[in-house]
């Protein structure tokens, strides 16, 4: 499936990669997680607590942690920062009213000491919706170009259809291997 790209990468066998999936509630984190694991995405419910899926692939064992995005749960995010290899931040591109809120949360994450230097991939999700803002507009709104202390990437995608997800994961792999080697 989507992670077959990972198999193509030459790397030491069974290298474990810890991926943290964060973002506001209703951003689409769980749908993305299930899409990565090639599971059914039609029965998603809001995440209380967290979900974790390990996806085995040649040379990689991806441990993806999907933590609930509800305001009440956000204080728990920090419990999962330790040893994170890649941060994936998911944004609902159609929820313009909360761009400011999501920008603030992202800025706070990037200030976290335990996440310093961790490569960050931002998924501009829900591009299947007509009202979705394009990735370039979101990048500008969030001042992503000011990020200088780590590698980052913004990728437009639709977790629902799977479009763009593969490209994002491709970037993830490249940056895992460069960082870990």
């Amino acid at each position, binding site marked *: 499936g989507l992670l077959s790209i990972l198999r193509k990468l030459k790397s030491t066998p069974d290298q474990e990669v810890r991926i943290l999936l964060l973002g506001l509630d209703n951003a689409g984190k769980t749908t993305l997680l299930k899409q990565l694991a090639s599971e059914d995405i039609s029965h998603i*419910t809001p995440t*209380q*607590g967290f979900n974790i899926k390990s996806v085995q692939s040649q040379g990689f064992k991806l441990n993806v942690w999907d933590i609930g995005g509800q305001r*009440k*749960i956000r204080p728990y995010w920090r419990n999962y920062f330790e040893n994170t290899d890649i941060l994936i931040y998911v944004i609902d591109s159609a929820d313009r009213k909360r761009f400011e809120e999501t920008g603030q949360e992202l800025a706070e994450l990037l200030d976290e000491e335990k996440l310093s230097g961790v490569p960050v991939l931002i998924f501009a999700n829900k591009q299947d919706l007509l009202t979705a803002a394009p990735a370039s507009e979101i990048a500008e709104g969030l001042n992503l170009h000011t990020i200088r202390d780590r590698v980052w990437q913004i990728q437009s995608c639709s977790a629902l259809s799977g479009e763009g997800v593969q490209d994002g994961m491709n970037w993830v792999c490249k940056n895992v291997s460069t960082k870990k080697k």
Partner: protein
Amino acid sequence: MFVQVCLYFYCKCLWRCLKFVVRKLTGQCELQRICYNTKPGAARTMKIEASLKGSKSKRLQTSVNVHPDAIEKTIDDIMELKRINPDVNPQLGVSLQACLLQIVGYRNLIAEVEKLRREPYDAENPQHEEMLLKLWKCLKPNSPLKARISKQWCEIGFQGDDPKTDFRGMGLLGLYNLVYFAEWDTEIAQQVLTDSLHPKYSYSFAIVGINITDLAYNLLVSGALKTHFYNVAPEAPTLTHFQQTFCYLMHEFHKFWIDEDPLDIMEFNRVREKFYKRILRQLQNPEMALCPHFAASESLINM
């Protein structure tokens, strides 16, 4: 592989022969023997269901899929096919009919529940909006909602200021269940809500309700709930039965959650999984009825 296939046909053949011999000895067909030897409820209905599905007659196989209105005719056909004299065995037709109503009803209930689940919550639909507001009124009768979009929704355990995005994969089914719980089991629903706000055991009531809807839905679709429904529904199980089961599961989960003494909300999925397995285990017992206080009058099925 080949050996397994041979074994399968051998067993099937053996089973057929055995049925034939028993039939000749007792003068009764399998359906009759089940009805006479098994007491009504899940034990009997599940045996009848297996017998009909495994029958070599097309008419019997398809009888589990008929329209509810065609059940009487189907029973007549089965009696005729099996050469059972209805005057000599007046009870049998009635018993078979009760079983078939349950079997067909369960299938139809899955379809009905699935339809509700697939209908997304639509803020433009006045009926949907009305139900949402009703949920608030039932849970918080003394504290009016100040605006449709309001932080107050968090007080009953939605994630943000507009619940519409929280229904997701459970669609209207989640809302229907929550409203039923709040409206018909008000005292317990309000109690569970109050307890869920306790700092030590805190969880989001409405969100957990949507999660438990998913749990109940999975139990239904997998067939695990047959035990329960065949024991409590005298005829076809209905949406109301499903919603009552949801109320029971909400209350049970709440007690289970407190007994588990979780460290914080991050333990939710672990506890939920454990709870799910426990319910599944309970439903393996054919005598099991999840919520006996809802049990329908036994006299009706006791035929």
